[in-house]
């Protein structure tokens, strides 16, 4: 069964001038059990919004989100968050500086799992720290004394300590330096294995996505434009946007593929409003792209693209 299923989800916001912004524009996506799905997109693609919708922090404007087959709105908050958790992007503003590491990890056990006995909870926290590779941080350390990398670990730990079925992780490594990045990724892997969770790994970095995911979904201006297994998307990207993203990965740049990147790089101005949101900058654009919105179509083996080229 699918752990999380987005069914034609739309989300609209009003910005400060009153204009309506479409953050999520008709997303249909399913996340399977025990998998890591990478949701790749730039800022403004709607990936963070989708992530927050997936755990019930935001309600969709239109469409349904199902968790374990049941609509999210049918769960109480506690019931939902016992099973679906969220990891924020910024480890500095997501942790209360006055709490201790022990407090942060203790709370989900006490309030979500309802473990009343303090001693039991402390034991669980201690053993969890061991398995999560955080033994060197004493439980009584206040959050404001931790470095960015350590904070991020606490954030990740907080989400996994209750062994949820699903975790939406919003760019968990983007605010962390290289030294800690691999540790965080390893930690995520290990904790996921231990609790058999599914992870929706939200990122703008295609190389991280390629490294850790089972399946990849590419998001552009609120729509999923391509998705498939990791190998499918990495080896044969179909959508022009995906191809453009791949042209500027570190591997390509190290080989000095300047020519490729400058060809696929968008023009600065895209003033026309086309139906396909990528049409304004797409090198392969047809007339059809301006008039109709492409939908995701399966092009073989579960690999889907939303593009009129196919």
């Amino acid at each position: 069964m699918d752990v999380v299923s987005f069914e034609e989800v739309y989300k609209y916001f009003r910005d400060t001038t009153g204009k309506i912004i479409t953050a999520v524009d008709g997303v249909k996506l399913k996340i399977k059990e025990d998998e890591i799905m990478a949701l790749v997109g730039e800022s403004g693609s709607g990936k963070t919004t989708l992530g927050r919708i997936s755990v019930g922090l935001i309600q969709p404007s239109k469409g349904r989100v199902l968790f374990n087959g049941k609509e999210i709105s049918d769960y109480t908050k506690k019931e939902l968050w016992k099973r679906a958790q969220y990891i924020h992007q910024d480890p500095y503003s997501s942790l209360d500086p006055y709490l201790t590491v022990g407090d942060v990890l203790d709370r989900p056990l006490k309030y979500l799992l309802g473990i009343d006995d303090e001693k039991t909870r402390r034991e669980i926290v201690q053993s969890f720290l061991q398995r999560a590779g955080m033994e060197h941080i004493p439980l009584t350390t206040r959050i404001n004394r931790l470095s960015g990398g350590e904070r991020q670990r606490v954030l990740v730990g907080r989400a996994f300590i209750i062994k949820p079925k699903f975790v939406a992780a919003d760019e968990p490594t983007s605010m962390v330096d290289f030294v800690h990045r691999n540790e965080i990724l390893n930690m995520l892997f290990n904790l996921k294995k231990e609790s058999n969770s599914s992870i929706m790994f939200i990122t703008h970095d295609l190389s991280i996505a390629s490294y850790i995911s089972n399946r990849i979904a590419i998001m552009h201006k609120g729509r999923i434009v391509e998705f498939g297994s990791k190998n499918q998307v990495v080896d044969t990207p179909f959508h022009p946007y995906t191809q453009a993203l791949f042209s500027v990965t570190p591997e390509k740049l190290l080989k000095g593929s300047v020519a490729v990147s400058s060809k696929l790089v968008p023009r600065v101005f895209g003033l026309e409003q086309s139906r396909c949101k990528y049409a304004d900058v797409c090198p392969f654009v047809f007339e059809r792209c301006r008039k109709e919105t492409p939908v995701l179509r399966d092009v073989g083996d579960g690999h889907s693209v939303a593009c009129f080229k196919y």
Partner: protein
Amino acid sequence: MSAKNLLPILTRNTYLFAGLVIVCFFVALALFGLFYLPHNPLESVGPDYAPPSLRYLFGTTNIGQDVFSQWIFGARSTLLVGFLSGLITILIGLAVGIVAGFISLMDEPLMRVTDIFLAMPTLPLLIAIAEFVKPSIYSVSFLIAVLIGWPGTARVVRSSVLSLKTQPYIEVAKLSGVPSYKIMFEDIIRHILPLSLTYSLFSVIAAVLTEASLDFIGVGPSTDYSWGAQIELANQANAVLFGAWWWFLIPGLSIAIFSTGIALLAYGLESIFKEM
């Protein structure tokens, strides 16, 4: 925050240090008066209208009471009104402000109530009540806090809470299942307490001045001989005409200096908390 770092922090900030010195001085004075007074402040112990001398450091009143003893004695009541009122103010202000800020449904109604209190001519109302009820030091503290003190604090607390509410770590607390009342009165309070405390120090000043005003009009708890009451008595006896400046100047200056001390303390604390 260990005790070791406390002293350098205290001495580095001159506002804080000055304020602390002044306030502590007056508190010590009031406490001292609980155990020893040079003369019975209410008894006639000397000549009428005697100017300051070695025997009567601040001179005597129109019926020969020792002003110095009265000064020490009066500190007790004045400070009591100030601090008690301040305490009640912050308690009510915090409760209202946090609930209004955190629970959006409660925001409108609570803020309207606050607005009513702010718009009401509370001082005349207070005077009217005082005239009828003839309050004691304790009840006047309470009345001042309820009628005049809390709305300002509530407003300040509410705006802090409104901005704090949007912080991701509050959302994380909710995600961890922490019930709202705990988030409000444990997590959020921890963040706003320092600044709210500082702000409420100003209500201490307001309370002291209001009580003095009530005394001066004649509806205050003058039997407790607060500094304000002393000024009133001096005024009633036309001390000015007799040139007995010591009788009203001493309590008057004391009110001013004490208030300044509290203000300095507040400014000092504010800059420390901002740094934290």
